[in-house]
């Protein structure tokens, strides 16, 4: 892909993300019923690792960290990592003619996936 095409796509992704953020802030899932339900929860009645993620992001956009943690703590904790990764990716996409995805070490990814797995098991245990 040409460098110009990559810059164009990177900017479209940023614009789409900003638009999604605006819609989530303007129409939070707590008061808007049009958001799709998680198919895993609908069919299996189990919380997947992403369940509550949309509500958590909406709560963050309204500045309510505790509410966001209540809905999905893992999404909240992973968000800074994901944001940092996308900032670096965007920077590389617009600056470098020879684009490469930023590397993340396998051990860090294994640690994160392990935490996601434990989080998924714990949130489905009848602890309350």
């Amino acid at each position: 892909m040409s460098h110009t095409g990559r810059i164009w796509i990177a900017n479209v992704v940023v614009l789409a993300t900003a638009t999604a953020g605006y819609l989530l802030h303007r129409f939070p899932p707590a008061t808007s019923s049009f958001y799709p339900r998680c198919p895993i929860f609908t069919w299996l009645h189990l919380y997947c690792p992403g369940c509550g993620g949309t509500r958590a992001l909406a709560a963050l956009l309204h500045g309510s960290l505790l509410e966001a943690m209540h809905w999905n703590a893992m999404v909240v904790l992973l968000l800074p990592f994901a944001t940092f990764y996308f900032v670096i990716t965007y920077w590389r996409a617009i600056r470098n003619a020879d684009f490469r995805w930023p590397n993340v070490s396998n051990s860090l990814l294994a640690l994160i996936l392990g935490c996601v797995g434990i989080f998924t098991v714990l949130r489905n245990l009848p602890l309350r």
Partner: protein
Amino acid sequence: MNYFVIRDDQRYGPYTLADLQKYVSSGEILLTDLAQSEGMSEPLPVSQIIGTISVSQLPVSGAPISIAHAYPDPPNLHWALVLLFGIISCGLFTAAWDIVQAVWMRQVAPQSKALYYYLVYAADLVLIAVFSFIAAQHHVKNPLVSFLQLAAYILTLIGRFSLRSSLEKHFNDVEPMGLLLSGVMTFFFGAIYFQYHFNDINRRKNLDRVGFQPA
């Protein structure tokens, strides 16, 4: 000093001068290919860069390029990141990554139909969002949304299996790498499963580029 070889608007490398000489000798790089180092303002024909090799030893044209160089590499984001970003974005990233993979497939196999299915799937998702929004504003339930959701599941499955078929054909006939993809894994994991194999294919192609095999 390292050099990049430029062929058909694709950059390959970096290679040392010794690598260039070796690959020219083996016919994987042609004397008519262009190459550029970091210190060069313009790419030059390889023949001008490796002027010290006897021309009689070198193939001038028509030699096939190495498999690792012939086609653009698959997208190389780590499969675990595709999974994590999919979770954080409530599946939207995975849907977008389906399209990224299908676009790459069209580049290496123009006859692949997976991209069409994924684009219709994406348009279907937009329609679901619009109709759901309108129905919620009027406090009614639109049965069309359920139909569109069913269509979305079917379209994404057709797209996945179409991509699987194209991948197996490409990586067993055109770039023979012995790729076999599980139907069950394709059904449940789609883009994440394909990405796992893309990471492996990229690793093997990079090993081929640097000229050694894994122990």
